[in-house]
């Protein structure tokens, strides 16, 4: 498939190299992709019989990107019928993504909820490889044990850094943490709150209360980053759907410093 006109709307075909099933609803598609890409960026993926949907990058490898897709509504059901070797049409990556270097030094807190883990998966991976990985605190929350994503990564992260894995609720007999991610912020041991950096990704209410918790703990607004989810039709700053105030989530985000995002009201 050619794109001789250099038309940013024309998608390219990408081969599905591997499908990783996390839950009944969430799968990671390991896609062929060559080019610059950062965690937190997203691709517009053409889904047969549905249309385009913005999917964030959950992992980056050699000539590969991971796209973790949640089976929600009619949007993404079709993709789940796709298997290794077949192709999907995509365009991107779009958005600013996370600059992992920014969080590499010193104490860091990452709070991620549900599919919000996808965009920060690369960030957490990078943190887990730092020398002072034990100063990297990661709270990951899911609705229930059945909803857990990236189980292998969770095990790895648990070894390498300070991981707090929690679920909102669980059947009797579950021995892990039960509770909202916000409940674990207080307990994180921090030496210098004013220099600690934080990254928050998840559903809007979770992000709101997590940031409140972090600020209460003493973190500075300028040291907090969040990632916004909005309807993104074009990824190019044209269609308008993702605009919040003067910002376009697809161009200026989806990752924003809290000092910016606090003024982005819906």
């Amino acid at each position, binding site marked *: 498939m050619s794109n001789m006109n250099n038309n940013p709307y024309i998608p390219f075909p990408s081969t599905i190299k591997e499908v990783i099933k996390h839950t009944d609803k969430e799968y990671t598609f390991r896609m062929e992709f060559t080019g610059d890409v950062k965690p937190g960026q997203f691709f517009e993926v053409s889904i047969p*019989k549905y249309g385009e949907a913005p999917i964030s990058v959950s992992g980056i490898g050699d000539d590969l990107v991971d796209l973790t897709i949640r089976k929600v509504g009619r949007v993404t059901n079709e993709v789940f019928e796709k298997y290794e070797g077949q192709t999907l049409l995509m365009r991107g990556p779009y958005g600013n993504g996370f600059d992992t270097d920014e969080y590499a030094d010193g104490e860091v807190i990452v709070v991620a909820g549900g599919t919000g883990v996808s965009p920060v998966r690369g960030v957490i991976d990078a943190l887990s490889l730092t020398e002072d990985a034990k100063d990297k605190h990661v709270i990951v929350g899911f609705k229930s044990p059945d909803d857990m994503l990236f189980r292998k990564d969770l095990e790895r992260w648990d070894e390498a850094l300070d991981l707090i894995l929690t679920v909102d609720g669980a059947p009797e007999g579950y021995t892990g943490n039960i509770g909202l991610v916000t409940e674990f912020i207080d307990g994180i041991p921090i030496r210098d709150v004013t220099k600690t950096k934080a990254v928050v990704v998840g559903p809007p209410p979770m992000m709101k209360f997590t940031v409140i918790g972090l600020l209460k703990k003493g973190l500075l607004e300028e040291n907090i980053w969040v990632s916004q989810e909005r309807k993104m039709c074009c990824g190019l700053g*044209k*269609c308008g759907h993702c605009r919040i105030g003067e910002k376009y989530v697809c161009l200026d985000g989806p990752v924003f410093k809290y000092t910016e995002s606090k003024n982005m009201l819906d």
Partner: protein
Amino acid sequence: MGYQLSKQNFGEVLGKLGETYRLFAPVLKKGEGRFKDTDVVRYDFVTNPDEIELEKKSDYAFKEFMLPISETLFFFTEDQVKEADIDEKDVLVFLRSCDMHAVKRLDYIYLENGKEQDWFYKRLREKVKFVLIGCADTFEDCFCVDMGSNRTEDGYVFSVDVIDGEFCCDVPDADMAKVFAECKAVETEVTPRFVTENEVHVDIPESIPIGIYGSDVWDEYSARCVNCGRCNIVCPTCTCYTMQDVFYTDNGKVGERRRVAASCMIDGYTNVAGGGQYRRTNGERMRFKVLHKIQDFKSRAGFNMCVGCGRCDMVCPEYISFSACINKVADAVRKEADDE
């Protein structure tokens, strides 16, 4: 260079131009209004001057050429994507001064906002030249003077003002001037007519504090607005669209992708996969729209989005006035400043 000519000779000019250009102009569509035996003025392709509505303000904007209400972008098959063809002929778009200013807004979003230009917009935009329709007098809802869009000094190939049945045209474009001269147009000094006074005035706050988000100024719109989105559709500066895919085959691999105009007032505008939705109330949507037009766009582009054409007021079934809303916002901003 200016020319004065009869309607018949003006028709000849259009006839000659028709060999090179398609003419996209406001047309009075009889009986195509909302209600029985009501008309609507909207844009369409024309061939002679009788078809062009030069008196009334158009209900719908010129943007429908560059931003078609429904536009097929490309066709896809299993292994190929092919952009939809367009008519290769250049286009003369007839519009008023406020709309000339709106072009700058469309260009900003589609050509300057973000790293990438909009390929499909650009393709149509490059075909367009503008013909300025002079405004002898203000229309009921116009507030172009306060928005600074009442005057247009350049950017048009010729202008049209009908004065006592004679067509008076300023023709800055040399090629166009040749066509006028060939059609027995008399050379004379012509300045396009511009409105210098509107009945409607707006008072746009220099800066709008974030506190306005929580202002009760929006509350009445939650009750009054019916989120029909007509204000967005008729607006010459609204640019939002939504993608639609149409599948010709059961496997969903052959079909077309198109985009259709979108409205930030209509349900579904913010819906994300999984059911998330932002700005549920019509008051919130009104705030989103109004602040874009008089503040948020300006923060990015350096100039206000709204051009004061007043079409949104004309079309609103609930008599919601955009200009009145601007002034309510201005009052609220002043009040907030006084309270501090």
